[in-house]
């Protein structure tokens, strides 16, 4: 084997590794679905608080979060069955979002029902966790723009911690739309283009 052949062999390795890594493409659907569910939860909570419908307070979140988890569990099972290869990046991201989801569910329900965290501070606390999840995801995807979304989540968390009140519903909804649903749509479009290649 000479230098030229060695170089060809190395290029072949690089090419095949690059092609294989494309086995994992984030399709953004999880971001979109969870984003919509949370916005619906925030809007319904706002209505419940404004019209003082105390007897159903919390029920909206139980239903929406249960739908979200059901979607995620069924979706990941289906995806696993369809997928012919699993990348390490995919495993890391799955673990990050699963653990973040559990943490957010604990904060949302258990903290609120136990009274450990006032309702108005649930959204900023969840924003801090989402900031971490987006930061790690961006790093793993190698997508700077996703990493930068975490700045938005953390800035929003600071704002909501210092400025609690009814506006938190709107701030969080706004963040959910522009820092989660819209990026989810972008990822969905990118995945479609990538898979069409």
């Amino acid at each position, binding site marked *: 084997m000479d230098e030229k052949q060695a170089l060809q062999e*190395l290029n072949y390795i690089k090419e095949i*590794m690059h092609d294989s890594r494309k086995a994992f493409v984030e399709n953004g659907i999880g971001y979109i679905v969870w984003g919509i569910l949370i916005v619906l939860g925030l809007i319904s909570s706002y209505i419940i608080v404004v019209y003082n419908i105390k007897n159903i307070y919390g029920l909206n979140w139980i239903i929406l979060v249960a739908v979200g988890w059901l979607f995620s569990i069924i979706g990941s099972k289906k995806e696993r069955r369809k997928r012919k*290869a699993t990348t390490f990046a995919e495993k890391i991201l799955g673990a990050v979002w699963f653990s973040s989801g559990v943490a957010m569910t604990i904060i949302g329900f258990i903290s609120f029902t136990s009274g450990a965290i006032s309702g108005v501070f649930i959204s900023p606390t969840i924003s801090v966790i989402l900031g971490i999840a987006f930061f790690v995801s961006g790093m793993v995807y190698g997508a700077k723009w996703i990493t930068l979304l975490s700045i938005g989540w953390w800035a929003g968390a600071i704002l909501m911690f210092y400025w609690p009140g009814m506006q938190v519903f709107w701030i969080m909804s706004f963040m959910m739309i522009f820092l989660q649903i819209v990026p989810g749509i972008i990822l969905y479009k990118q995945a479609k283009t990538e898979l069409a290649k």
Partner: protein
Amino acid sequence: MKDFDYHQLNDIIHSRIRLAIMSVLVAVDEAEFNFLKDKVKTTDGNLSVHLRKLEDAGYVSVTKSFVGRKPVSTYKITSKGRKAFEAYVENLEKLIKGK
């Protein structure tokens, strides 16, 4: 490039198909037989032979399971295989650098 001993290149990896299999398995954590077939672009029989050789060398491990009624073989690179692959790439780099 006179003093490079080509025997330093691992004979088990030094085959187009086995090199491709190892490259795929380094890139992904685990892969099904059909995924490997698609990436390596070879026939079932040929791929099986090369996979068996890598398995015998302890470079890849296989898990057999059923998805519904369909048998599925999932392959994974072992730590021994990863080390051998890294050493192989290192030797190629040495060859290019003329060491």
